[in-house]
């Protein structure tokens, strides 16, 4: 029973995207993803200035069990990485859609955002994998 806020966009690989007022977007991993990964113990976020293509591995989350890549949902330039996660990776477990944000990106083409999954479509993709 994972939390899927209605105002965000999603990918089938369990990233979420939030539009910010300044035209940039905030990216993290979903509640479902953090539950599946378990306790996170190490997070590597990208540095500001890095150019990303959609689908690029842009961050790494490691739980006690295993390492997983986080893929950029869209192309753009990294504005900021969440430095707090370096010393507190558990923020992703505790607050995946808030303090657990991972990076902020200036999208190359903001219109792409509309092509990502909405909450209902992401919910449906989870149901399909569980079945």
């Amino acid at each position, binding site marked *: 029973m994972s939390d899927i806020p209605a105002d965000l966009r999603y990918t089938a690989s369990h990233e979420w995207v939030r539009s910010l007022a300044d035209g940039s977007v905030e990216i993290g991993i979903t509640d479902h993803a953090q539950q599946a990964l*378990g306790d996170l113990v*190490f997070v590597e976020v990208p540095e500001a200035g890095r150019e990303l293509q959609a689908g690029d591995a842009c961050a790494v989350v*490691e739980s006690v*069990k295993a*390492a997983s890549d986080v893929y950029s949902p869209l192309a753009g330039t990294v504005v900021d990485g969440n430095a707090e996660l370096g010393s507190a990776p558990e923020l992703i477990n505790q607050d995946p859609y808030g303090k657990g944000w991972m990076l902020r990106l200036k999208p190359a083409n903001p219109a792409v955002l509309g092509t990502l999954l909405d909450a209902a479509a992401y919910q449906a993709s989870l149901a399909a994998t569980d079945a």
Partner: protein
Amino acid sequence: MGRRTPLHDLHVALGARMVDFGGWDMPVHYGSQLEEHHAVRRQAGLFDVSHMCVVDLLGEGVRGFLQGLLANDVAKLEQPGKALYSCMLNERGGVIDDLIVYFRSETAFRLVVNAGTRDKDLAWIRRRVQASAAVASLQVIERDDLAMIAVQGPRAGELLVAQLPEAERVPTLALAAFCARDVASPGTTVAGADIGTSGTAGATGAPDATRRGGWYVARTGYTGEDGFEVMLPAAQAEGLWRALNAAGASSCGLGARDTLRLEAGMNLYGNDMDESRHPLESGLAWTVAFDPPDREFVGRAALEAVRAAGNADKLVGLLLEDRGVLRGHQKVQVPGIGSGEVTSGTFSPTLERSIGFARVPRATGAAVQVDIRGKLLRARVVKPPFVRHGRALIEL
């Protein structure tokens, strides 16, 4: 669907995340692997280890048979109830499995072997029994009727013995490490012996039900803490688990079991050694009894040759100095000497650093580099164990 232990439905009811482990559906955690780890270091935790295979070897000549089968020497087991850790080797000195052997009587020894190797282990043992005229009547009995629960942590003894009949409490708490005893099961007055067949089995050697039903309790474990492993009839496992839960022992999954054993400096079969690796390059030289020199055991000749030539590789402990997490199969660079590979790695919840084991060239010194996603990170070579009885044993 994988194989299930007698506690499978209870794990699901307790909210465990179930995963496949060597063909078995097993709990990896019940919510937080980190909390389970800390519970064992600070209080007490419960592990379902029923997927491991209990094998009773019954009959005349069993001690001599085991002296030939195992790299460690069961001659060290002088008192009934004593246990010994050993590797079982192939002719090339490779490790078929690691196991614990318990001496119960001169006609009854018990082995506990790994889950993922059970079929090949049983086949290997049975083949050797058949090949030896001296032990032709030896019975090899797989005890699928038993469950096994590990109770581990500083409070393990106190919590476990409270579940035992009054008369069993003091002698069970008095067990030394690597010792075991038969214990009457709660609510019965049946003497504890559970040998599998009666000691004086008739011509059929059929299991004697009147001798079954007891518990076998060993002061052993895989966590680096005080603790016990209880072998008991499958039908009684859920009752014991629930009672220990209620008394304050936390349900713990395979995830915590792995971080605890790594901190404790204990090898995992399949990761840290296997049939292509011998004990001398796996940190297990201490488990090979070369004395007396006239004891012939499978793999001895191969190990003697390695010993004479000097082994090329060794297994060492690593502490990652940079930020990141060591994982199995990461490449290790040893400047000026060569390269190796991480065999097991994790984040240590107790040390809050990444630790692991690596197989590296024998000449490797104090510092290596580990390739983690294309970056060479610094790691220090340390002597395991990393943690024992809740305390760090290495300098951070």
